[in-house]
């Protein structure tokens, strides 16, 4: 998603820029290449959606970005630059300064990501204190607590001053997600990475949380990466989107353009199988088959087994090609099949 951009942000440099990212996990069954050659850019103030099915590499991609790939996993190749800083070269001190303040990430599972043994106050204050050099030493504690309460109010926790001393398990799932967002936002990061912030939530609560993220993005001028498997969420809340399949980005472009005119056979299949309330008679057409194992892939298009357009020329490594302004797809036959 580099090259040609046509939007208003044309002039600005990307805040986050990922090139040729490759992340591997040694397992008993062999080396799992969970992320293989991913390129991504996130521009200031925009919301980038990352969509894909389970295991497609969405979480590992961004765990790699923020230096939290679990051992024995490792980033094998690629560059990750954030505001001019090479994140792959950062030491633990550098990370401590960056994480929370410049980049914050909310994890897929709010209950396990929050510390069950600490109150919500302790968890927010910990982040705030770590980045509170600007506050005078005297009264710092009180100021931090006030700011923490303010954050909870911002994310819509009722009676925040009373509830801030409760433990995570005393909140509902929706409130825990919002608490995670409050923690992530408490240092006003430049980039928020929200990994499935609403997947476990009911739709009415999901709508509240997503609206909140959008409002805060506008107010704070931050960039957001929204990881989800729900194309409806992507359509309503993101500016640009990258579709992942089996560890690779297979299509990327401006959200509306990509959804209205998908180019890659997988994206087209994905969009065709969403049950639409606006058209109840449209049949749901499944994509047959399964996602491949991420071991020893290569030399063939990863979608080959499931693709209705496969041909012998697809038996090679496929790279991304331009299919429109700021719109790219990983399909060697894209020109032919669109005719």
């Amino acid at each position, binding site marked *: 998603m580099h090259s040609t951009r046509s939007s208003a942000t044309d002039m600005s440099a990307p805040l986050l820029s990922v090139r040729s990212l490759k992340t591997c996990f040694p397992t008993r069954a062999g080396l799992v290449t969970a992320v293989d050659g991913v390129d991504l850019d996130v521009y200031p103030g925009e919301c980038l959606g990352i969509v894909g099915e389970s295991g497609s590499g969405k979480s590992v991609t961004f765990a790699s970005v923020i230096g939290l790939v679990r051992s024995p996993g490792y980033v094998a190749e690629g560059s990750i630059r954030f505001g001019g800083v090479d994140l792959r070269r950062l030491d633990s001190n550098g990370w401590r300064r960056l994480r929370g303040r410049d980049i914050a990430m909310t994890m897929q599972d709010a209950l396990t990501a929050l510390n069950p043994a600490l109150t919500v106050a302790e968890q927010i204050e910990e982040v705030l204190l770590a980045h509170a050099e600007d506050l005078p030493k005297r009264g710092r504690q009180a100021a931090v607590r006030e700011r923490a309460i303010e954050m909870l109010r911002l994310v819509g926790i*009722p009676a925040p001053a009373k509830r801030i001393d409760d433990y995570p398990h005393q909140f509902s799932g929706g409130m825990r997600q919002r608490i995670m967002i409050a923690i992530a936002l408490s240092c006003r990061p430049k980039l928020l990475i929200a990994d499935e912030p609403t997947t476990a939530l009911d739709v*009415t609560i999901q709508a509240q949380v*997503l609206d909140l993220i959008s409002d805060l993005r506008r107010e704070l001028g931050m960039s957001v990466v929204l990881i989800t498997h729900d194309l*409806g969420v992507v*359509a309503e809340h993101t500016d640009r989107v990258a579709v992942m399949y089996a560890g690779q980005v297979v299509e990327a472009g401006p959200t509306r353009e990509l*959804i209205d005119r998908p180019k890659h056979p997988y994206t087209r299949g994905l969009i065709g199988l*969403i*049950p639409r309330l606006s058209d*109840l008679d449209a049949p749901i057409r*499944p994509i047959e088959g399964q996602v491949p194992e991420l071991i020893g892939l290569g030399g063939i298009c990863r979608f080959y087994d499931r693709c209705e357009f496969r041909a012998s020329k697809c038996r090679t490594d496929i790279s991304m090609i331009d299919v429109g302004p700021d719109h790219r797809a990983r399909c060697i036959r894209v020109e032919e099949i669109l005719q």
Partner: protein
Amino acid sequence: MSVAQPHPLLEIRNLEKVYQLNSGLLQRIARQPPLSLRAVDKVTFSVKAGETLGLIGESGCGKSTLARTVLRLHEPTGGSITFDGTDITKLPQKDMTALRRRMQIIFQDPYASLNPRKSVEDIVGLPLALHGLAHRREIRDRVVAMLESVGLKTAHLGRFPHQFSGGQRQRIGIARALILNPSFVVCDEPVSALDVSVQAQIIALLESLKRELGLTYLFISHDIGVIGHVSDRIAVMYLGDIVEIGPARELLREPKHPYTKALLSAVPQIDAGAKRERVKLTGDLPSPLAPPPGCKFHTRCPFAVDRCRRQVPALRNVGSDRTAACHLVDAA
């Protein structure tokens, strides 16, 4: 679709499931007041033979409890269940066992609902053996036929659940539920644990099996897109109550109850312009241990008036074949 008014296959009247919490000895000694949770609160509806009734509502609203109570996997604490003309509310369990051949359930979690130590042949064949319906050889033949109709192969007979993907495991669960030739099947979130592409495969399978075998479904899902596609009629549940029932199309096009409106307007749409005007709710789902008085929805309802806080709205006719429980919806 309506075939000269078939009689309801399932009729539920004022069905109630109240769980007594802390009624144990220790609590009684400690003199704690008994806590009761009305998971299903005087629910009335019917399912016609051959139709799919979709049930939507947010987590914890009582959908699964309702489904299990209907099948008497949980015992109801009030009301009645009539299946194919027979009142089964108080039927002794041994008679229920025989009846259960005709009433089956497909569970949400294909991982948890299959015994990890049994082969596919044993899992799918077990209901036949339990009901003494077939001999060993015959069992194998019927299992093989069943596996084929759910898209699995004979080669899968000897394999174990962990050797299958989520979608394949759900196919095993479907085969197990259908091997007894039931007429009524509860599908309790059958695709929620699956990826969208696999979800679509399983929905297509369930729909074609329904046509081939003449099944009747009670289909539970929190995914309104899925429900819209599979259902003939839709029931909407909130905190143990059914707040609205109606034909799928009409209910989705023009919801009557404020909760249904809010729910539908919150569903993210991929089509530009398909978006409805948002009916915004505030606050979280109240605790089912202390449901609000009057209309249970009044704490989140943007239209609530004084009366809503005092008076429980009854489910009444609000259009042809449509009912809703709200003071502000005009009766038909």
